[in-house]
């Protein structure tokens, strides 16, 4: 089904491999058989019109949406849709949301430490050390004790990134993580993501920041109507769209 054009170099074992993913909400099929692979260390951006299924695909990868059909393989282990306990999968796949979703009753540090404590059962001292390190990485080492409501949107989103990072996931999924931010706060979050990319983190991003996608990503995936209809290096896709849909999308985004 998918028009994968082979521009991603073949590799013995991708870190994330999606095969024929299908998902319906009631009568509406939102994902119509998606195949995709993300290599270790790769940074992949997903673009497409609203409603094309980007979020649904991303959420499927860590089990927030239960897929109807297909196989998700992360780091060699398969998840098939009938599987009940998705926690093992989620430990490998981190996720950052558009709306930050920080826990409002916990300080920045506690947000980062919570899962380390209750899921990984680490002791207090090593939780704290890991949290401090993660917050330092996003440039918020000094905000350990601040509550989310006292942080700017950009800072909150960086804490959310640190919270995921601290769990040491194999791959980090980011769903429009700058869309809820004031324009001037966008760059601080993007620069954190850029840094992660440079350090070799495997990233799968849904984004509307075309310039950023162009500069930072290794590969671009264009979704349309529940399918991936183009993928390849960003510059190529932007400058020489093969499909009318992508051409139109690029035109629309750049019109402003």
């Amino acid at each position, binding site marked *: 089904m998918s028009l994968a054009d082979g521009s991603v170099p073949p590799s013995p074992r991708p870190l994330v491999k999606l095969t024929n993913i299908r998902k319906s909400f009631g009568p509406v099929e939102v994902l119509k058989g998606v195949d995709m692979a993300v290599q270790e260390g790769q940074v992949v951006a997903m673009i497409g019109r609203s409603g094309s299924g980007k979020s649904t695909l991303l959420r499927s990868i*860590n*089990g*927030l949406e239960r897929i109807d059909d297909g196989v998700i393989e992360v780091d060699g282990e398969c998840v098939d849709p009938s599987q009940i306990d*998705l*926690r093992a999968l*989620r*430990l490998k*796949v*981190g*996720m950052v*949301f558009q*709306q930050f*979703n*920080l*826990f*409002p*009753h*916990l300080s920045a540090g506690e947000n980062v430490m*919570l*899962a380390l404590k*209750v*899921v990984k059962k680490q002791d207090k001292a090593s939780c704290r050390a890991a949290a401090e390190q993660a917050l330092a990485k996003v440039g918020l080492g000094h905000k350990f004790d601040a*509550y*989310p*409501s*006292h942080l700017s949107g950009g800072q909150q989103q960086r804490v*959310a990134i640190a*919270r*995921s990072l601290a*769990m040491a996931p194999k791959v980090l999924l980011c769903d429009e993580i700058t869309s809820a931010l004031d324009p001037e706060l966008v760059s601080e979050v993007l620069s954190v993501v850029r840094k992660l990319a440079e350090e070799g983190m495997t990233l799968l991003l849904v984004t509307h920041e075309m310039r950023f996608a162009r500069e930072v990503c290794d590969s671009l995936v264009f979704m349309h109507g529940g399918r991936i209809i183009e993928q390849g290096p960003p510059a190529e896709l932007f400058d020489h769209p093969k499909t009318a849909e992508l051409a139109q999308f690029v035109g629309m985004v750049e019109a402003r």
Partner: protein
Amino acid sequence: MAYRFDFASLLDYAPVLVHGVATTVGLTLVGAVLGVGIGIGGAAARSSANAPLRVAVGAYVELIRNTPFLVQLFFIFFGLPSLGVRLPEWQAALLAMVINLGAYATEIIRAGIDATPKGQVEAGASLGMSGPQIFRYIILGPAMGKIWPALTSQIIIVMLGSSVCSQIAVEELSFAANFIQSRNFRPFEVYFVATALYLALAVGLRWLLARLGDRLFARAARA
């Protein structure tokens, strides 16, 4: 009709009033703790995956919320003995208050849980936390913080409602009022004082619970 007010005659009965206030306060505080406990359990049960449990708790909530407290009290005190369950009056009163508050608290807390943004739960899940962990560490605190004012109002309603426990000879504040007026025949003075005491208790309880809420849920209130 010329009526001469005589509040001084109440002084003889001060110990009765004090005893009444103490009983009302005691019943309310114990009832509130147990009732809120039931509410938390009930709310957890109502949002659980276990359908029979959900239905059972739902039936309990509806049954209690749609019958008067006085009838529940009579049922427990006068009715249950014919099934061989005989509770002394204060235990019967306490049980009635706990059951009553428990039902309302279940509904209130559940509303708080429902109001938890879905994203919070998803964030917890994508960090690998289990359902009960998410409930315990992510949902409960902010939910309680959010509904604390509603819960406070309900606790006060239960405190005021406990006035009908005088009907089964629980010696709380309105028992004291009725007892005194049946001895000194001065209903105005007695009821006026008792009502003022209730108002003071309500205001005081609200203040106390607000402070308690600040302490317990200050962090949740940051939401």
